[in-house]
């Protein structure tokens, strides 16, 4: 679970680090990813695992559309406006999903991965295990892409200093679109992995986006590696708190962490700022 949070959060973090915009519609994009893989399964019979590439493409496309139609206009606006705009996007996507697909709970029945496996005496659901593995790999891939390839370096350059990067010939607008595509691609992987074992409904994103916010704050805004650690911490706190105290207050534990971190160490535990 923690690895999934980490992946979702890294998408958010990437977008934030790049253009200082918090994507309040992140959870809704996750929901879209889950619905995409659900419909691919329902209509074409593709298993969520098989359809990951398609989901990534769809979501990356979504991200680029979001950038061109909304984000481009509010890049230089005040923070308040940015929050409101992405928030409006969130409301819009969520209620559109509710309108089109009704708020029913759905799930993919008979996915390829089912049952559970035993590792050293601990039972883990097979889809969850696979999700963790895939997320870890996706994460490593993302990390390598951002730190090792030329495009990734250009991305980093843009996030550090937009003007300087532009002088050196990095088209910042394209980089932003790429950032959105990548960020939502991460979400797509997480979403399609989750859709094999999680219920799919229009409001599913809210909790995950909250966790993603917390993870990003914990890891330091803009730091991708921080997200990995933070995601794992949150996953642990959530399940341990649920196990030891009371599962209905899961969110509160995570919230408590958030508050502690932002009050005492606002740059995040692993923050670079």
């Amino acid at each position: 679970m923690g690895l999934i949070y980490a992946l979702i959060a890294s998408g958010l973090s990437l977008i934030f680090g790049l253009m200082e915009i918090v994507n309040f519609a992140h959870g809704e994009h996750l929901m879209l990813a889950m619905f995409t893989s659900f419909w691919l399964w329902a209509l074409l019979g593709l298993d969520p695992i098989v359809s990951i590439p398609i989901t990534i493409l769809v979501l990356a496309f979504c991200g680029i559309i979001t950038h061109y139609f909304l984000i481009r206009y509010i890049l230089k606006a005040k923070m308040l406006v940015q929050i409101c705009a992405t928030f409006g996007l969130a409301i819009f996507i969520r209620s559109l999903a509710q309108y089109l697909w009704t708020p029913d709970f759905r799930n993919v029945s008979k996915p390829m991965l089912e049952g559970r496996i035993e590792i050293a005496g601990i039972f883990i659901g097979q889809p969850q295990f696979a999700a963790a593995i895939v997320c870890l790999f996706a994460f490593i891939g993302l990390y390598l892409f951002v730190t090792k390839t030329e495009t990734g370096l250009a991305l980093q350059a843009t996030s550090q200093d937009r003007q300087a990067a532009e002088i050196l010939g990095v088209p910042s607008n394209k980089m932003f679109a790429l950032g959105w595509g990548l960020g939502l691609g991460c979400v797509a992987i997480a979403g399609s992995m989750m859709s094999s074992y999680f219920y799919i409904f229009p409001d599913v994103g809210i909790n995950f986006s909250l966790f993603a916010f917390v993870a990003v704050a914990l890891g330091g805004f803009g730091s991708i590696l921080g997200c990995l650690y933070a995601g794992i911490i949150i996953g642990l706190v959530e399940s341990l708190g649920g196990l030891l105290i009371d599962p209905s207050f899961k969110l509160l534990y995570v919230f408590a962490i958030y508050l502690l971190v932002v009050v005492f160490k606002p740059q995040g535990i692993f923050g670079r700022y």
Partner: protein
Amino acid sequence: MSDLKSAQAEPLFNSNKKMTYLVLGFFAFLILLPALGPTKFFLHLMIMIFMHAVISQSWNIIGGFSGQISLGHGAFFGIGAYATSFFYVEYGLTPWAGIVIGIIVCAIVAILIGIPMLRLSGHYFAIATLLVGISFQIIFQRWDFVGAASGLWVPLTSEDSLYAIQFHSSKVPYYYLFLIFFTIIFFITWVISRSKLGYRLRAVRDDAQAAQSLGIDVAKHKIIAFAISAMMMSPMGSLFAQYILIVDPDRMFNFEISIIALLITVLGGIGYVWGPLVGTLILIPLAEYARIFFGGTGGAVDLMVYGVVLMIICIFKPSGIISFLPNHILHREKMR
């Protein structure tokens, strides 16, 4: 954008006589309205307009004047609603006292929350309030003492009663109640916006460091604004609870309330006293009618409209619809 302008802006209703008459005439019209024999639906619409205007006005205090974006304001609405209903159901205390209790509780909660949280700024604060709003909902869903997830059902009185604030025969008394609160709260906001406090809050919003260097205690002012804003939210929750007579965590701590408060204010004109009113007058009828026309198809159409409107406003007119009004109404002419 007109941040700079609004920093020096005086709200409407300045020494201009024409304006004074216009506003007084508007209120006189509102007072006389029920005498014209409107339908029940129209009264309901007006009540919703008053309620949302006040909710967004309270958001405006913290979001517009002092520039802190709170996404969890629904929490105070819920506290107000629970305060009245809980004391009425359990102890038979009149909702009037409940309203006062709600206000006090809200102020205390706001200060307690505000002390750690208002040290944060920007995104951190917004996300923290979002989490607070949802935490309240979760707590009240699980708290057996206040009825847990099923909530509280206010016992009906046999006839209309001012003591219990229940009117079954018509909506007119409710209309006046909401109108009274609407008037009081807009008046208070207007006073605040022209007082020293209002100017200081705007100074904090526009440049916290500069404000600090001028001797304004930034943290204290943010907390004051937060508390005032919470205190305004509470009576609306109370009255709404008395209006629908059911209190449950999903309705009262609904995330939607926080969103709508923000949305209306941004739509109408953030930081202007009359912005929330403009926003409400446009949005609430739109939403109510959208709900009627598309009702039963999933019920999310009004929210869809909200989302689109919010995005469009953010792209094209970040200072809100009120900024379409001519400048001389918005900004008082320089006296000297």
